[in-house]
């Protein structure tokens, strides 16, 4: 075979330059086109020894891990897949920054490992050319060799290596074949000395890449010949305007049924576990503030976070599996035509859907959206979707409204979900036409081939997401719970005369009627807890701010419930349980007795705290209000600034207030008390 004019052999291969100090570990960046198997390779190399971090100032996520190469530890960075280093996208810029030594943060990579899809060499080589011309030592990992082999392609790695001017190792990241060879080859990473066309000359690049393919690949690439009819048929069904939507609806329905059904078992277990832990803390610690802090503040706070973990894990596990099959790329097109009407791309669908479990992972999943404006719009409206933390509140309030009318109750549930989703979509539309005005990126997606999903990848992704959730949200929720506990507990007030009297009565009849004595004592304790709540800092705050919520029909007790929910909605039921008349048996929100007590709670004038009108108004308020500090923290992180978090908070709360007011006033006008 004669040498192609576009190809030149390397003049020399400079060995990788080691850092002079030798302290930091040698850092290798995994680069490549999307879906070439970088993350799969990264997981093979580093397994659980990895940290996910947001690239400073962007919404792009990178993972850094450690592994052992030839007896010495190295650092590996998994970067997002990009089609080119020179696109005006944050992902491209992040990849480029890892190749250059401009700033201290992040430290530039010592060498690049370019992960290449062996079945799509021609296009991948254009990206290889871009990296090699950066003058950084590189190794090419030729991945997906199993598929290439099945298709009858043979790739001559040594020839490819000579033509590229850097080591080329054939691997199969999925099975792990060749990964050891790759590790052995890393120290030989070299700066390519071959003549590579400038990336600005796309035609020369294409010619160069084609020539390399011609010289190093045996067998036939299927170029426009007989198509893959199986893939074609699946694509036709999955992207069909009617059938595609039906399939998508069925898949999503299945996904969420599985999530909610499966999650309930670990959630019950977690509730039981922390209930037991709280009990143990109560038994072994002496009565007093420390016991209360540990049993209610800390254990309760951790339980409040961990209880969402099963849903989050299941969501990411199943979504990763689904994404791995190749289906989600098709689904994005199906949803695109629907979501475009609201100014959002098809990519937004998965985050918005995930937001029904919890807005935090949903906002984290918004990373998948290529365009910045689309991404921010999605982040802004994600908390409108009814998350699982709202469920206990819906259960309580709908139970009060339609306790014995299951059909109406079902409709009300569906209505809450619909109200949240529709308001979110309309808000997205308004945002894209005002503050986030601008053209959207056109919908072009690579449709990966259909595959059996990798359980290993899904498990590792799930582990990673769970860690981020626990770290980011867990610390904040825990802190909030402790602060709330403090505000709700202090200052400790002396028991009021009624309580003292009840306690005395209880003592008096202790001998003669133990039953009555116990009942009296229970009542005394409830009254005291309620009295303490009223006179705590939180109670005073509730009374102070109550006039703001007066037009919505909320008394000071509901105001305390609403205020404490601004930290996290799920505390509403437990806070209300304490405020309206606490029981000494704890504040288990699932306990029907607690719900009954809240339902029957009375104001000081004897009128019910929760009338149908206030319940309806409160329900609307909870559907629309931004009551979750951890979400605001995540919004700040992912959207890149407090201003977005502030906007989200202000807009949602104002909207919730107005909608709840309209609801209350119209219910009253209709004669519903």
């Amino acid at each position, binding site marked *: 075979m004669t040498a192609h004019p576009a190809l030149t052999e390397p003049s020399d291969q400079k060995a990788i330059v080691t850092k002079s100090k030798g302290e930091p570990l040698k850092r290798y960046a995994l680069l490549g086109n999307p879906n070439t198997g970088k993350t799969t390779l990264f997981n093979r190399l580093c397994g659980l020894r990895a940290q996910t971090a947001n690239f400073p100032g962007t919404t792009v996520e990178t993972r850094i891990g450690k592994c052992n190469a030839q007896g010495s530890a190295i650092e590996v960075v998994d970067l997002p897949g990009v089609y080119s280093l020179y696109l005006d996208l944050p992902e491209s810029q992040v990849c480029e920054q890892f190749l250059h030594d401009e700033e201290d943060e992040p430290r530039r990579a010592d060498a690049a490992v370019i992960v290449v899809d062996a079945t799509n060499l021609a296009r991948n080589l*254009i990206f290889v050319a871009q990296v090699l011309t950066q003058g950084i030592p590189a190794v090419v990992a030729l991945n997906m060799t199993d598929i290439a082999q099945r298709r009858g392609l043979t790739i001559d790695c040594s020839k490819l290596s000579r033509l590229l001017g850097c080591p080329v190792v054939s691997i199969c990241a999925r099975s792990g074949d060749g990964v050891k060879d790759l590790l052995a080859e890393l120290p030989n990473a070299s700066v390519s000395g071959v003549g590579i066309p400038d990336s600005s000359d796309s035609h020369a690049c294409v010619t160069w890449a084609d020539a390399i393919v011609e010289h190093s690949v045996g067998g036939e690439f299927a170029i426009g010949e007989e198509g893959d009819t199986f893939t074609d048929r699946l694509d036709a069904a999955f992207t069909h305007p009617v059938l595609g939507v039906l399939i998508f609806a069925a898949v999503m329905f299945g996904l969420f049924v599985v999530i909610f059904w499966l999650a309930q078992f670990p959630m019950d277990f977690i509730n039981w576990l922390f209930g037991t832990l709280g009990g143990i803390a109560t038994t072994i610690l002496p009565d007093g503030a420390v016991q209360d802090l540990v049993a209610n503040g800390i254990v309760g706070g951790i339980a409040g976070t961990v209880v969402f973990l099963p849903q989050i894990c299941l969501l990411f596990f199943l979504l990763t599996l689904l994404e791995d099959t190749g289906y989600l790329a098709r689904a994005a097109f199906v949803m695109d035509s629907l979501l475009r009407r609201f100014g959002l791309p098809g990519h937004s669908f998965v985050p918005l859907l995930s937001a029904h479990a919890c807005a935090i992972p949903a906002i984290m999943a918004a990373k998948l959206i290529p365009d910045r404006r689309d991404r921010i719009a999605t982040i802004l409206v994600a908390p409108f979707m009814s998350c699982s933390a709202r469920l206990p509140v819906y259960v309580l309030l709908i139970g009060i409204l339609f306790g014995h009318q299951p059909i109406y109750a079902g409709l009300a549930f569906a209505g809450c979900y619909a109200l949240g989703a529709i308001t979110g979509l309309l808000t997205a539309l308004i945002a894209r036409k005002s503050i986030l005005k601008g053209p959207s990126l056109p919908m072009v*997606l690579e449709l990966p081939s259909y595959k059996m999903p990798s359980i290993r990848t899904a498990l590792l992704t799930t582990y990673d997401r769970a860690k981020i959730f626990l770290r980011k949200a867990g610390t904040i929720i825990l802190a909030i719970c402790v602060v709330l506990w403090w505000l709700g507990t202090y200052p400790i007030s002396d028991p009021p005369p009624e309580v003292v009297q009840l306690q005395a009565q209880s003592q008096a009849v202790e001998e003669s009627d133990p039953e009555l004595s116990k009942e009296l004592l229970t009542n005394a304790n409830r009254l005291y807890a309620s009295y303490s709540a009223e006179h705590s800092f939180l109670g005073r705050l509730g009374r102070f701010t109550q006039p703001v919520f007066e037009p919505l029909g909320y008394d000071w007790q509901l105001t305390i419930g609403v205020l404490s929910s601004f930290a996290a909605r799920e505390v509403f039921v437990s806070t209300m349980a304490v405020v309206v008349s606490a029981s000494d048996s704890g504040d288990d929100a699932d306990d029907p007795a607690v719900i009954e007590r809240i339902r029957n709670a009375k104001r000081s004038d004897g009128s019910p705290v929760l009338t149908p009108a206030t319940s309806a108004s409160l329900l609307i308020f909870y559907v629309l209000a931004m009551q979750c500090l951890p979400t605001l923290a995540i919004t700040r992180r992912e959207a890149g600034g407090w201003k977005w978090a502030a906007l989200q908070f202000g807009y949602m709360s104002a909207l919730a207030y107005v909608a709840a007011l309209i609801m209350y006033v119209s219910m009253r006008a209709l004669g519903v008390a």
Partner: protein
Amino acid sequence: MSANAVNAHTPAKSPQGPMVSLAQLSSGARCRIAVMQLQPADTRLLNAMGLTDHCELCVCRPGEPCIVRINCTRLGIAGSLARKILVHLIDGQD
């Protein structure tokens, strides 16, 4: 883009059909990119994804989205975009 430029990179054996929009082709049609009447940023993205000038592609599924295959890459392209990509038909159109 001039017709000359197209000819320069087109193998002589491939007939140079008239320019049509990618969205007009039916399934199984093979064609070669002629002109992309898009914003520069969109063109750059499509180029990087493998839809380069004069590359040969095969229409797998017309409509919304238009699914095409270039070598082993399958791309889904929104109909609005496919309408602005003009191609020379190689064969397969009824």
